[in-house]
């Protein structure tokens, strides 16, 4: 079931987008106007993986902000069976997809994984991620140079009765 991001999530994305744009002015981000990440670019996005917040990571990776789209179908559990192994997958009906990335908002660093989707590869990925706590999982799809996103909150807590 795709959950359209609630108004709060969109506003939050835009707000964060605005905040990071402001930061740009301070020259804090080394390469503000980084070119959209070309598909063939094999370089490991070291900088993006260092960013703490989700907006900064998106900025470092793609150099632009994403807009929510119901063409991006993010599949994640409601309550994670275990924070260490959370099965998350995304499919999309968008075409000319060149990259798909996953962000876990409140993890130590938001960017979890980023996939290059060359020509001829189906724009869909399934993987298992670690989540520090209950937070939003954001999937970003780069299609034809523009960014589309889907967000879903996943509840995470420990198991067992204590000890």
């Amino acid at each position: 079931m795709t959950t359209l991001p609630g108004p709060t999530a969109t506003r939050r994305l835009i707000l964060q987008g605005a905040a990071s744009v402001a930061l740009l002015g301070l020259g804090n981000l080394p390469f503000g106007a980084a070119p959209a990440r070309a598909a063939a670019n094999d370089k490991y996005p070291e900088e993006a993986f260092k960013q703490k917040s989700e907006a900064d990571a998106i900025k470092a990776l793609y150099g632009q902000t994403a807009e929510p789209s119901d063409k991006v179908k993010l599949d994640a559990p409601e309550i994670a069976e275990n924070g260490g192994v959370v099965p998350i997958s995304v499919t999309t009906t968008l075409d000319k997809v060149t990259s798909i990335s996953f962000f876990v908002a409140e993890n130590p660093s938001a960017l979890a994984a980023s996939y290059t989707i060359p020509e001829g590869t189906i724009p869909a990925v399934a993987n298992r991620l670690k989540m520090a706590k209950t937070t939003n999982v954001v999937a970003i799809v780069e299609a034809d140079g523009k960014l589309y996103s889907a967000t879903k909150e996943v509840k995470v807590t420990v198991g067992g009765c204590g000890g």
Partner: protein
Amino acid sequence: MASSIRVRATANGDITEVQALIQHPMDTGFVKDAKGELIPAHYIQQLKFECNGKDVFVADWGTAVSKDPYVKFSFKGAKKGDDLKVSWTDNKGGSDTITAKIS
């Protein structure tokens, strides 16, 4: 030693579905060991799939990818019997590679 990569690639029609499970600790660098010292970060950074001489899928991973990582994707343009080369490198310079036949 058996390879650290288990891969299953099955072609039906023009679409080949690929599943990979890799044996790797994927340490985040935030976890302490029994003696209370931090276990240094040790995680796969890049995982590449090549078929017929072309990259069909490249994964850039951070520390948030689960231990013994798993990934599934599909791609077009390959057929039964083609070779699928899978290789990964981690932040400590470790690496492994395997070539599997698409069944």
